[in-house]
């Protein structure tokens, strides 16, 4: 179970690490282990060096009495599952101030206040709330071009999902619903197709099929989702969007 959890976590953490956006400079090792389909202590130690993802796993694990790399823990964080409801918001609030570094404490506090205890420790919520917590010039009233760029970075950084429509050697055409910002509110745009990368040497992509739904991170197909996971990622993403819109509705958090 732990090996499954480590690999699931590594699959979703791989691409932003590879791009240099987070974690240690160990992309070669992560890719090697994903292709081998095996974990070892070295990979676990590498994943523990991620500045935000690993602390989130620890939060979910200690709040639910699970091992950090029990499959359900990284699944809750990246995709969403019932464990998210078991993390007390007071724990998440305390965690956001004391363990999750790099954000403006005043803005974090404001988001929690506006959401009145509804914030989940879900990766997409973390990503989307950046829109509410970063010092974005003009806040929700960003120009179309700036709004497009912000929506694009949110869309790339959240875990999204896509239905496979075409398969090439190392690329897939997937049908997705990207994040858009319209009059200051986040929403999912109508379906569109795009090309993403995948690694056919990472299981289960050697058997990826048309119609499969895959999780996506920075235009990279991380895993093939089960029907339950598809339902969950849609449900939790919708909830994240509603929450972030609520947090920004009463006025942007810029101070």
């Amino acid at each position, binding site marked *: 179970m732990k090996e499954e959890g480590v690999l699931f976590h590594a699959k979703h953490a791989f691409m932003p690490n590879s791009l*240099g956006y*987070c974690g240690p400079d160990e992309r070669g090792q992560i890719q090697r282990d994903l292709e081998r389909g095996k974990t070892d202590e070295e990979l676990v130690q590498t994943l523990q*060096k991620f500045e935000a993802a690993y602390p989130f796993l620890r939060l979910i694990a200690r709040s639910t009495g699970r091992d950090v790399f029990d499959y359900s823990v990284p699944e809750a964080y990246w995709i969403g599952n019932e464990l998210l409801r078991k993390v007390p918001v007071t724990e998440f609030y305390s965690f956001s101030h004391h363990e999750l*570094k790099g954000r403006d404490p005043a803005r974090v506090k404001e988001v929690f206040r506006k959401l009145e205890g509804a914030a989940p420790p879900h990766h997409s919520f973390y*990503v989307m709330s950046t829109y509410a917590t*970063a*010092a974005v*010039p003009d806040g929700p009233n960003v120009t179309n071009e700036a709004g497009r760029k912000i929506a694009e970075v949110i869309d790339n950084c959240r875990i999204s999902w896509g239905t496979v429509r075409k398969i090439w050697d190392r690329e897939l055409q997937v049908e997705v619903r990207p994040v858009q910002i319209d009059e200051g509110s986040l929403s999912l745009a109508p379906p569109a197709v795009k090309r993403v990368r995948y690694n056919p040497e990472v299981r289960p992509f050697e058997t990826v099929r048309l119609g499969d739904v895959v999780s996506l991170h920075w235009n990279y197909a991380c895993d093939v989702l089960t029907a339950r996971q598809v339902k969950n990622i849609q449900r939790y993403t919708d909830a994240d969007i509603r929450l972030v819109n609520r947090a920004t509705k009463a006025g942007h958090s810029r101070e």
Partner: protein
Amino acid sequence: MCVTRAGRVVSASKGKARVEFFDGRALDDVDISVVNAKKGAFVEVFGNLALGILSPAEARRRKEVWAEVAKAIGEVRN
């Protein structure tokens, strides 16, 4: 996942910049067009997009936070 990181623009051209972050790393292709940052500015970056400009005082505070992060990363293995 992406982390909101703070750093300084060390060179800028045509809406792109090299940003050196307080965590010791750097990125060459940060999009600074949303915040219109200039060389020397302190910026808040998410992924490869600069989302905000930080005052020197706020930048100093973030630098201290990142020093704590580096220390914490050494402790998380326990």
